[in-house]
């Protein structure tokens, strides 16, 4: 047995190592194919009938179970809470904790999302905030914010890159359109309260 094992220590001479390589012992790698003896005529007929009956039982069981189909336009597949659907832009909510920020856009036009985007589908043009026209709490805001959803791969990197949680992935997945230009979502569309058309999956579902 010892000479069949491959050389493990460097003290072995090169010649014996070569011999060990030549005499490779498959050991437990060999899988022995076990075949049952060929059944006789009656035996195989019985087997065929039994297996057919088993198959018939299985398919009949599907009738008893009932369909599992989602009737899509009427019923919608529920999504998990972390499902990555269409993006959303956010505003500071109108609550006392946000103080003077309430109602302003969270996006400050830093373009980190555009930089992170592997599909290059986000376009941000920033502009300076002025005391008369304050859109975001920072120095700048996104004057133009467009996501081309026909390019987007829904990876969620923009969400991760955003330092202010201004952009998140929503739950909407019904994004088909008759026109490609309809798939370029502007800032107004992304900021708008979306109709939550997608049901959320319940706990344990």
């Amino acid at each position, binding site marked *: 047995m010892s000479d069949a094992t491959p050389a493990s220590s460097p003290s072995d001479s090169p010649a014996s190592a070569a011999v060990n390589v030549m005499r490779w012992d498959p050991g437990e790698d060999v899988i022995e194919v076990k075949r049952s003896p060929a059944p006789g005529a009656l035996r195989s007929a019985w087997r065929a009938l039994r297996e057919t009956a088993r198959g*018939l039982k299985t398919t009949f069981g*599907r*009738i008893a179970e009932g*369909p*599992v189909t989602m009737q899509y336009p009427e019923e919608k597949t529920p999504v998990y809470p972390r499902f990555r659907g269409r993006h959303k832009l956010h505003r500071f909510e109108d609550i006392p904790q946000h103080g003077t920020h309430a109602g302003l856009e969270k996006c400050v036009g830093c373009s980190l999302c555009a930089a992170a985007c592997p599909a290059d589908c986000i376009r941000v043009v920033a502009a300076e905030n002025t005391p008369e026209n304050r859109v975001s709490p920072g120095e700048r805001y996104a004057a133009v914010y467009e996501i081309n959803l026909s390019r987007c791969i829904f990876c969620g990197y923009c969400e991760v890159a955003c330092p202010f949680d201004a952009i998140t992935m929503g739950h909407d997945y019904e994004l088909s359109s008759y026109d490609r230009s309809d798939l370029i979502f502007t800032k107004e569309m992304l900021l708008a309260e979306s109709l939550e058309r997608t049901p959320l999956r319940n706990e344990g579902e």
Partner: protein
Amino acid sequence: MSVAPLALVGYFEPAWIQVLKAILIFAIALQLVPIVLIIERKLLGRFQARYGPNRVGPYGALQPMADILKLLTKEQFRPTTSIGLLFAVAPVISILTAVAAFAIIPFGDVQDIFGTKVGLYGVDVSIGPLYLFAFGAVAFYGIMLGGWASGSKYSFLGAMRGAAQLISYEVSQGLALLGVVFTAQTLSLTGIVRAQGGMWYIVPQFVGFVIFLVAGFAETNRAPFDLTEADAELVGGYNTEYGGGRFASYYFAEYLNMLVVAGVVTTVFLGGWLLPFGIHPPGWVDPLVVLFKMSLITFIFIWIRATLPRLRYDQLMSLGWKVLLPLATLNALATAIIVVATH
């Protein structure tokens, strides 16, 4: 027991009744096929844990209408390599033989309608099973010519497979019926039904029943013997090049053939219009009994289709020649010996 002469039909019907019956049978066949179509699609759906068609009409009941309308409004085209006349005639042969075979299935005993004796079947031929096999053999020309005249490899291969398959299985099918014919001592299908008053032939001829049913799957090119179509390998088999109304005819003939086999099994093995336990309902119930038994057989057809995978070609051949044929021969031989010994 006196043996009825083979050519005895019993009575003659006026010509106008025969014409009326021919029209009625064609109409019934035309109505049954869409019903079987939608039921098959719904059942296949259920067998696969889905709904099946449920958008057109209530519960999808109008789906076959939509399909037929779509097929009939399509352009009639044919490949440039095809043989024009044969290409057009082949589906006609298919549909014609299917309807002709449907004519001999008895839906009831001879009824007294307005003083005229009317048999609830197209014709009560004194050579019932032979008539059936004759038209089955001609139906094969529909497939064969269709595949050949298409001028396409896939069609040709499908048609060739169909030819070999039909020849192989028709033999065992005929031998399976032989046992019944021995026992009933008549070839008339109504005679066979009347002979089942005591016991349906499914009990003494169970082997014959199984062989006939399995061979019936093969005869009608249904799964698991649908090598003629084998969509995975041959695109569509003999009907690859067909579209529109001609394809619809093939489709129609296929389903009508299934109904014919169901009807023959009902007649020959399940006692036709007879009910068990000595119940003798009024005459108008007979067709409903036959239709009910036919739907049971059709359900088995669909169930098998939903369950078994398609056979390989050599498996098909060895099943036909090495299993079914010897079994059918032995069954016929044993029946013959028993019939002779008990007389």
